């Protein structure tokens, strides 16, 4: 199955450990249907910012959208934790 739809999210974080916590937290959950989609994570440091790059690949736009929504929703919680604690 070829992944025709793709999307990259670049999430900036102030601190390095924030980016790595986000990565560790998100990457634990497996994709429900590995034939339909794939995710990969990478951290980089670009112009004073720690980025978490999330590459999403899916067999269709719909699957991609659902996956992206889930990840962004989880990120919301993660960022809220950083803000609050």
């Amino acid at each position: 199955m070829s992944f025709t739809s793709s999307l990259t999210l670049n999430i900036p974080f102030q601190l390095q450990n924030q980016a790595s916590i986000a990565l560790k937290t998100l990457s634990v959950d497996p994709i429900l249907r590995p034939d339909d989609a794939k995710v990969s994570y990478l951290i980089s440091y670009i112009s004073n910012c720690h980025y978490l790059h999330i590459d999403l690949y899916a067999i269709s736009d719909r699957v991609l959208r659902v996956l992206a929504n889930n990840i962004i929703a989880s990120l919301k919680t993660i960022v809220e934790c950083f803000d609050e604690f």
Partner: protein
Amino acid sequence: MVVDLDQHLKPGKSSYVAIGLEGSANKLGVGLIRHHPGQLSLSNRAEVLANIRDTYITPPGEGFLPRDTARHHRNWVVRLIKQALDEARLGKDDIDVICFTKGPGMGAPLQSVVIAARTLSLLWDIPLVGVNHCIGHIEMGREITGAHNPVVLYVSGGNTQVIAYSKQKYRIFGETLDIAIGNCLDRFARTLEISNDPSPGYNIEQLAKKGKHFVELPYTVKGMDLSMSGILAYIDEIANTLFNKKNAKPLQNEEGKNKNKKNNLCFSLQECLFSMLVEITERAMAHVNSNEVLIVGGVGCNERLQEMMKIMVSDRNGSIFATDERFCIDNGIMIAHAGLLSYRMGDTTSLEDTVCTQQYRTDQVLVKWRDD
């Protein structure tokens, strides 16, 4: 032989504190609990430092869907955690372990809560413990009521089980062969378009109290188990015919006649379902020669169920234990408590193992903290 619960007490600390996060269904709960060293007993009780809950309530006639429930949990989880810490007057340095519901339950809601758990665990550098939801109910019930080795009736929206402890496992003696009792009651509430605030089961209970006439319903106990989908289908059919749903007559019609019919149906359904529960509980008691019953789970709040169980248990010269709505209904403190017991036995959950599972049987958990 007494289990040593204190091999993992942090040096310099005089007690254990755990935070518990619960979100397997539509209730989001956060609890903070403290254990003092030594065996838990009547003179050494667990201390509830905070126990907050927010319930996702849907309009009448609707059930709650996983995606919306997950969204609700995500909106509230960080707020509730902060509120719980404030209430307990504690900070991150006071906490030993973060406990969360690993399962069973609905996938999306469970996952939305575990994200917060993982993040905080990494942020604060403290371990995680995944907890079985049913074990949470059982252990909290035992702790609050002091029941030592009861037959446990666990009844909620998603579970209906009769459980007895034996050799480090909570074994399931009887259970539902199809749907859970809370689910059955909730779905009937939807048929009758009863409000979901504070919960459909509570509202059915109030209507049932006013019911007088008993409608005969199928009675489906099968050995130590029971089946409820047939009864639901039967009573749904009666309701649909009585209220002419097909003609779209408004049910909110406060005509005396309709109200009485609703009351009688709720009354009859409760009498039938609860009789079945009491019967299978009694069978389990006879089978394991036990004299104590502990009721846990959301449906355990129902006063009629407690009353019926009490009558049966007194007949056998036994004792009945039940908790109030703080602990009956899904909550975070029970997760904190059960998780802390695991933690004190040296168990933690590594990050890779924190994936939530919708199916997680009560008898899969090794109850290390008991050795009777």
